[in-house]
């Protein structure tokens, strides 16, 4: 099972993701502050990051760049309620693996995390 970091400026959204993924046996840490999340990843504590695109101080893509720079092997799933192809293209060009659009569907979230976990183990 994986260590997953969730960064969403709304605490409740992170809490909901945490509940879903912990039921699947993953270890999940939720953050609402960008810098806290980046520091957490830099300390080698996460295999997978789930990043909301809209955050308080930075954009999710900016956080993506920073954590991929510090930990190129980390897998990232972007999360957004207002998706655009431009943002998706940018996020993927910076190494985001998956894109999840709100409203969050429990099965869809589990499925996407499962795909990432399987890719990691076969890599």
């Amino acid at each position: 099972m994986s260590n997953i970091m969730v960064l969403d400026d709304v605490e409740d959204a992170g809490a909901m993701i945490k509940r879903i993924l912990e039921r699947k046996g993953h270890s999940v840490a939720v953050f609402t502050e960008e810098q806290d999340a980046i520091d957490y990843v830099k300390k080698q504590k996460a295999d997978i990051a789930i990043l909301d695109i809209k955050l308080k101080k930075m954009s999710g893509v900016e956080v993506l760049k920073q954590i991929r720079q510090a930990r190129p092997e980390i897998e990232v799933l972007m999360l957004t309620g207002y998706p655009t192809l431009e943002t998706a293209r940018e996020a993927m060009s910076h190494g985001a693996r998956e894109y999840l659009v709100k409203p969050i569907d429990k099965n869809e979230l589990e499925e996407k995390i499962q795909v990432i976990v399987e890719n990691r183990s076969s890599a």
Partner: protein
Amino acid sequence: MPDRCAESAAGQHPLTRGQQIRCQIKHTLENWFFKTCFPGLLIKKKYSAFQRLRHGDRSALELISGLEEIRQKSLVCDLEYIRHQSGLLDKEVRTLVESLIAFNPLKYALLRNYHRKYAFYADLCLMEDDPETGPPYVLGLDPELSEDLAGGKAAELSFLLGNNDFSVPPGLVITTRAFNLFLKKNRLLPVIRQQLSRLGPDSHDTIHNVSRIIQNRLMEAQTPNELKEQVTAGLHQKGLENTELALRSSAVGEDLQASFAGQFESRLGVSPDGIFQAYKEVAASKYSPHALYYRMSRGFTDSMTPMAVLIMPFIRAKTSGILYTAEHNSPDRASVHMVSGSGEKLAAGAKYQAASRFDKKRRELVQDSHDCPLEPDTLTTVFEIGEKLEELFGVPQDVEWIADGKDRIYILQSRPLRMSEPEKPCRQEDYPESSVLARGQWVSTGRASGKVHKLKDIKSISQIPQNAVLVTDELPPALTLALGRVAAVVAEKGSPACHFASVARESKTTAICSAPGAMSLQDNQIVSIDGDSGLVLDGALFDTRTGPPEPDQPDSPVMKKLSEALRFISPLSLQDPEADDFSIRSCKSLHDIVRYVHEAGVGEMFSLVGRRGLDSYMSKRLDSGIPLVMHVLDVHSGLISSGKSIKTVKMEHVKSRPMRQLFAGLASPAVQWDSSVLHYDWDAYSKSSASFVDVEKSTLFSSYAILDREYLHALLRFGYHFAVLDTVACPRPEHNYIHFSFKGGGGNQQQKFLRIELINLILEHFGFSVRTTADFLEAFFDRKSMEDTGVNLSRLGIVLGKTVLLDMRLETPQQVGSLAEEITEEVNGFFPV
């Protein structure tokens, strides 16, 4: 109890709690005001929203079916067309969602988020990366060149350049990045994408127009300065600045993943001054009608096949030829077709002067033409080069070469030779001599029968009937456009080594060439072609194809993208409106959203008149005498006065002309509403309705009709079948129409298609124009007299009643024709033509 706050934060709810309360109060007050003061206005307002739903629903289902059909049949179209259709679907679904939200903003606002989500996923699947426009723009031929940068032909020639066994002219390549830069600097990409979005299935007429517009724009465009500078420097470096040049196409994918044989143009004998004009001409040939069609038929996208251009010194050819390192039916033999001078006409399927063969085991020439332009030693050298190429690449090769004035052989191109296995060993002697109409040479294997269509003009390709045997003088690459609609191709001239031959073999189309007398065949004469023995035979000896050829690219890049996108467009998981999970949160695709909106729209339309004191607008239960549970809503003079005050009306209370005419068919003795129908459709209804007293719930399960004296909108449910009928029957013919649509139903996919085909055949017989896409059918009967419209409504009623359960019984296409005749005859008995 779910955590509403967390759900809202995660996008499960669209509004904050405060917004929800404010919205609820506003909606309640507005509804109360209208219901109390202006009930008629409320009806009209909601009816107008309902009409928008109805139109949007039909368009959305048609778009979904269209995309499904492209995938199921691997229809030839451009990715931009698919993206365009997906965009239209997104727009239609958005309109549907907003129309439903107009009924009740609080209740349905969440649907916006689900629509946004699945529309985005579909978009994401169809998205392509932006083309790379950074350097390098010009490269020398080098064994390390990649296909991504240099295109297929240049990459392969570069590879050969590193091998001393082969002579390849030196040269430069203007890279694919340069092509992308050229498009970007001239802002051509949006124009190209917009034009390509017009290339859907069956766009044979449009493709010429699209090609002309794009090619004109390319020819008017300016070559970027940085590209000009690098080309000039590169020519100087290679010592070619004062040399006559040859510019050849080298697109990505060309020669490697697909042959693209003859699809692009070359420019020979170009002076250094004319190089950039020639560059644009070669680049623009990527968008010729046949090149566009070929690319689409192989399932590549435009941006997957950027054009690189090779620049080489122009070598004046004494002899040109095409060498196959293996022969059809005889892998131990190689063959070569040759002409004196330039080989353009040979490759273009117009002529060849001589052919020779080489036995690879005995290492000797086995047949030498009398007018062979090469000495035997040189000819042997050509075959030996072919052997080395075959050994190097590991598969038989199709090699274009030239010999200069000193008989030095240069390789211009070497690509895998594509040949399919013959159907079975065969000889010309297998057929009686009397049946042979013409003898030719194999071009592409297979056997087919069909009616002759002689091609008079290359521009009239779109007029070739489906499954014709195309008879032509030569085999130019432009014939590529005819592939997919012809059963076979026969040419009086041409050679088996021309470019079109490669393309015909790739598309698995039977073809023969060099068949003297072929042009004397008569139009519509039925003939059979045996590609393997090169014969044109009298009569229909083989199975005639009944549709387009089997798709040979079901897993092409475009089809893979479409399949991915359809995961968010097509699946219908919301089936039963009575089920607990028939909800916004259970929507998993755009199709689910369309389905949800339709059901919820019907529910809203009926619920608004089923409560509190709106008796004059209340929906009624119709006791029609047939086992169809139906509610009717009279919006204007659809019922007689005495029917307006009672809860259950009978047909004698119905004044709506089209409704009466429909039921004249549905309730006619031609339709046997037997107990099995009752059991299948209505037992379930009775059980479910027993537990509901709520009008809204029960109408959700039943059929409904909105009535006017001259208008009817009906949703008819027969178990899992849904038919929508929208019609006007009035004294003015120009206002009259019947629009009927049907989708879905029980049974497997094959049974659904058969049922659609059955209804199609019957309705066409009665003058409807019918369109079908996958399992969606639409029928139109417009601008006819009130009497004719009425009679066809009655006929439609019979057809509907009789075909309700047929998909469970229809097993084979043969059943469809005979059943259609049977039903048509019976309908005629009641409502004669």
